[in-house]
């Protein structure tokens, strides 16, 4: 069962020197090495790394002879194995640093064993009973419906901060809003122009304030001032007349009629 991963290779009964050069079936040099190691027909733990290096190198030579181009990583591995082979064959050079040939060979053996183990367990994994193939989940699953309930919160600090904010809004408002409720002169002019021509009786200035600006003292002040300025402007143009009997007495106004605009 674990063998089924090597099927690309196992189809070829080979010996090292009569190796069929077919690099397509391999997933990289380590895979190729593993396949070569299997041809040694010994437990992977006892495989001869030196022999394996020779097998690999002759494989590469064979590929060269047949003018088959090998991918770069296969050639890198070949170079490394040639180096490993020389380290294994030559007596150790005490001046040379780094791992010994045996250490390098042992690591390669470990890698091969590990790769083989992973392939074996991968096959076992796939041979297990699988969901939706051998066992099944509920076919008519009911989805859980969600009922949303919102809990609103606010703390005492929020409350006090909110109150403080509301009470002191003007303190923080940017300059352009600081005017608060302002009834503009333009608005007053607009309002007077439409009505004054038909009003030939004396009426008090207050009567001309727009309804929404009469109650709130602050607004009333603004509306009064703007209306008065607007009246002055219209009087200057000759559209209306103004009079005040005494200081602080009510200001009265009436239209000049005709609507001719004398300057």
């Amino acid at each position, binding site marked *: 069962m674990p063998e089924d991963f090597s099927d690309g290779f196992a189809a070829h009964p080979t010996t090292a020197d009569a190796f069929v050069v077919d690099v397509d079936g391999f997933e990289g040099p380590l895979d190729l090495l593993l396949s070569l190691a299997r041809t040694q027909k010994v437990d992977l733990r006892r495989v001869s790394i030196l022999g394996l290096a020779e097998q690999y190198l002759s494989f590469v030579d064979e590929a060269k002879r047949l003018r088959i181009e090998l991918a770069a990583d296969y050639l890198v591995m070949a170079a490394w194995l040639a180096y490993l082979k020389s380290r294994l064959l030559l007596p150790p050079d005490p001046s040379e640093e780094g791992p010994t040939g045996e250490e390098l060979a042992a690591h390669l053996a470990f890698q091969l064993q590990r790769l083989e183990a992973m392939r074996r367990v991968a096959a076992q994994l796939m041979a297990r009973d699988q969901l939706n193939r051998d066992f*099944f*989940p*509920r*076919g*008519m699953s*009911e989805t*859980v*419906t*969600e*009922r*949303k*309930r*919102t*809990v*609103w*919160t*606010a*703390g*005492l*600090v*929020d*409350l*006090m*901060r*909110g*109150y*403080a*904010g*509301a*009470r*002191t*809004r*003007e303190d*923080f*408002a*940017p300059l352009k*809003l600081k*005017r*608060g*409720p*302002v*009834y*503009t002169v333009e*608005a007053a002019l607009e309002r007077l122009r439409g009505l004054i021509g038909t009003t030939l009786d004396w009426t008090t200035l207050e009567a001309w304030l727009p309804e929404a600006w009469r109650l*709130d003292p602050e607004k009333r002040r603004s509306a009064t001032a703007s209306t008065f300025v607007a009246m002055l402007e219209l009087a200057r143009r000759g559209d209306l007349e103004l009079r005040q009997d005494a200081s602080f007495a009510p200001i009265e106004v009436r239209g000049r009629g005709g609507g001719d605009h004398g300057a």
Partner: protein
Amino acid sequence: MAPDGDPIDGVGALFDAPPMPEQERMVEAILFAAATPQRLQDLAARMPHGSDVAEALKHLESRYQGRGVRLVKVGDGWAFRTAPDLGFLMQREVVETRRLSRAAIETLAIIAYHQPVTRAEIEEIRGVSVSRGTLDHLLELDWVKVGRRRDTPGRPATYVVTQAFLDHFGLESTRDLPELKELRAAGLLDSRPVPAGPQADDDGAETGYMDPDLFE
């Protein structure tokens, strides 16, 4: 090792239907995994030859009697369904905690500090109009209720806070609310409210007093 069953049965034994408990298991598995109710003939087509599906269904039905899941007949098909009395388990209540909008907080605070207070007075203090939604929300939360009508022209309704409000904020009475001076001392007045601008209110429904046309 010896094949069970009586030797007389011979070849026929090979085609024997599995024993009833096994048939019951099979029907159970098929119905569990099926996406739609299965008719008797659907089940029979999938069961080993010679099975008595109707009988297996009967066994299965009584086995699930009173369980959290029941075997039910749906039209001419059979299906497992959650027991109707457990339907409530199929709903999940998602509790979402949300903070009150700034508009609501301010309105609530003003009511708490000035109660009984009319809507016009709230607007006067806030400097912006109070949307219907904001007051409705507070009424819904049962933190605010409508108090006596004010004895002024138009007899406007007033708003007062409720016991639920006091409970939520851990107050014994509204007299426990700190005064403005104390708020300032506590540094609460120094913390700038959300900078004013066309924005400010999280409550989009609020329209300012200030008709922008008047100010252009």
